[in-house]
């Protein structure tokens, strides 16, 4: 943005590349679970972005537009690919016994939530667990728990009801928790 005026100065192509491409790529990769599809989507979004740069008149509208376009492009890309993981119907509560008791051991974790930055190994573990989520859970998890969007906005983006978003988010969190547990449980560490 030009500091001498209150009007929004659209970023140059070079700035788009430097400042926005990594962000678009990361979001697309998390939603799609692989690098090749993320690159295709990044290219598509960058092309849209460069074509429409002159039409932006408000600074606040730009990141929102970019986020929305990236999510929509990623979802459209997946539909074209007819993703195989859509057919999976993992039910994280299936491990609970008839009496309601968890069917697996539950131990404390050694990971520290308050450390400023996650180490590389921890980040890779989380990213892999996200990539393994079934699509319908991954979309909601990435938008809610990684991107920090409110449930109402996610419902609008994904064309779902808020209760449906909450239901999927809860299942996604349980699947994530159960996927990460073997790596973080204190008793599993030497």
């Amino acid at each position, binding site marked *: 943005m030009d500091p001498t005026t209150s009007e929004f100065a659209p970023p140059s192509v070079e700035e788009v*590349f430097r400042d926005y491409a990594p962000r678009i790529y990361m979001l697309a990769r998390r939603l799609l679970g692989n690098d090749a599809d993320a690159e295709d989507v990044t290219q598509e979004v*960058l092309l849209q972005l460069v074509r429409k740069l002159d039409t932006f008149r408000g600074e606040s509208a730009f990141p929102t537009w970019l986020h929305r376009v990236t999510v929509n492009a990623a979802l459209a890309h997946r539909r074209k690919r007819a993703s195989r993981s859509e057919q999976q119907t993992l039910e994280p509560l299936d491990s609970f016994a008839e009496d309601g*008791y*968890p069917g697996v051991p539950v131990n404390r974790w050694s990971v520290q*939530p308050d450390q400023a930055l996650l180490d590389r190994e921890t980040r890779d573990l*989380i990213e892999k667990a996200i990539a393994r989520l079934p699509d319908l859970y991954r979309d909601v998890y990435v938008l809610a728990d990684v991107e920090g969007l409110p449930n109402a906005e996610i419902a609008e983006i994904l064309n779902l009801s808020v209760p449906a978003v909450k239901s999927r988010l809860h299942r996604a969190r*349980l699947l994530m928790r159960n996927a990460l547990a073997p790596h973080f449980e204190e008793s599993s560490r030497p």
Partner: protein
Amino acid sequence: MTCRELTELLLDYVAGELSDEQRFRFDEHLRHCSTCLVYLETYQLTIQISRRLPSCEPLPEEVIRRLRSALEA
């Protein structure tokens, strides 16, 4: 309240959206069930560490090169 019933309420508990009665029964169960207490802790940890993931990282050089040539085409 069983452990499974408590687990079904975790999202609303974390969001502070349980009714007074649900919250009372939830807390009652936690007082007597160390397994669910740890399960709750680890559910919250899952959310906390996911929110600490970086929003972006530098793109690999070869990706930058391919994207640039696509944009310049």
